[in-house]
């Protein structure tokens, strides 16, 4: 996820302080990984340098950062471009798992066991997400569903590979 673009998007509804941005980000998108304050301030200074935000006001106070940021015209255009651009589909997990399965077959290990262990791990995470969905609001449900569908896709690949292990073994051992 692009933290810069997300923070910019949050600024479109009106100027905010850094700590306010962090809170809004964590509440809406940061269930698993809340932002560090340092990430917020380094991102904001980069956006400031690139002219995508400007300082709308500075308040005196005890906190380390009291600047209030506002999005610029260029910032709005940047968010617009980012939102409209499709994400690159990345087959991130399969490549690692595929490597493990092939190595298991090559070294005489139980490749089925590799897949079974991975299935159990996927299901464990899917239970956590399902439980969170059960107790959450609609935005929790949508975010968890997105993750669940991706995990399910991995599992389908896993089942298909499990069904083709004998064939795969004979090919990789040629």
């Amino acid at each position, binding site marked *: 996820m692009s933290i810069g673009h997300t923070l910019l998007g949050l600024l479109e509804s009106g100027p905010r302080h850094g700590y306010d941005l962090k809170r809004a980000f964590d509440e809406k998108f940061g269930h698993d990984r809340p932002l560090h304050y340092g990430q917020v301030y380094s991102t904001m200074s980069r956006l400031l340098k690139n002219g995508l935000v400007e300082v709308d006001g500075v308040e005196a106070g005890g906190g380390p950062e009291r600047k209030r940021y506002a999005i610029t015209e260029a910032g709005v255009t940047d968010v617009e471009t980012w939102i409209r651009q499709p994400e690159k589909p990345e087959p991130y997990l399969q490549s690692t798992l595929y490597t493990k399965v092939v190595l298991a077959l090559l070294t005489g290990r139980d490749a*089925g066991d590799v897949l*079974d*262990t991975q*299935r*159990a791990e*996927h*299901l464990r995470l*899917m*239970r956590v*997400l*399902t439980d969170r969905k*059960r107790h959450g609001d609609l935005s929790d449900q949508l975010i968890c569903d997105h993750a*669940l*569908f991706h*995990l*399910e896709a991995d*599992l*389908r690949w896993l*089942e298909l590979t*499990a*069904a083709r292990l004998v064939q795969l073994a004979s090919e990789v051992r040629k």
Partner: protein
Amino acid sequence: MTPAGSLLVAQDLHKSYGPTPALDGAGFSIHPGEVVAVMGPSGSGKSTLLHCLAGIVTPDSGTIRYDGRELSAMSDAERSALRRTEFGFVFQFGQLVPELTCVENVALPLRLTGVKRKEAERRSLEWMERLEVADLGHKRPGEVSGGQGQRVAVARSLVTQPRVIFADEPTGALDSLNGERVMQLLTEAARSTNAAVVLVTHEARVAAYSDREIVVRDGKSRDMMLEHSV
């Protein structure tokens, strides 16, 4: 999870249909209030395992104990009584009786155990309310959607307050949204009555509603959580 304190335990089950082994040493255990998913590819033996556990099919060898009693030592009549009073069933296509109204369908298991019509329908409507289909009471299964029909089927499986619910691909004929809702309602209802649920599914999103999973492949079962806890 060890079999100690289990409500239903199966060990070393073998079952063949002709020369083809459907079960080849499979085992299973479930505690009261637990939801266990039985997963595996088509033809792996998961439905046969469910049918054996429910006393519908008799295994060639192996033991199945329900609440301390050996299923194979029971007469057919005793096993039928067990299925009527202590077990509940949900199937992929609901299998409601088309000639009966929805409330009559839900009331059917109670009527079969001798509960009077009025009382049976009162209790049925309570369950239908929990499953969000109380307003469909007087419609026939042909007049309701697939999702609604499956909720009626779930209400029917729960109406006798069974101790074990056997659900064979309960969302297999539903779209994602309806499938999710059925799973949510089924597992919530089961947990509130401390019923155990044996959930056969090949869908990971459905299995995610369980507490743990058993994987069946080539008639053999594998309990990943048990292996990991050991």
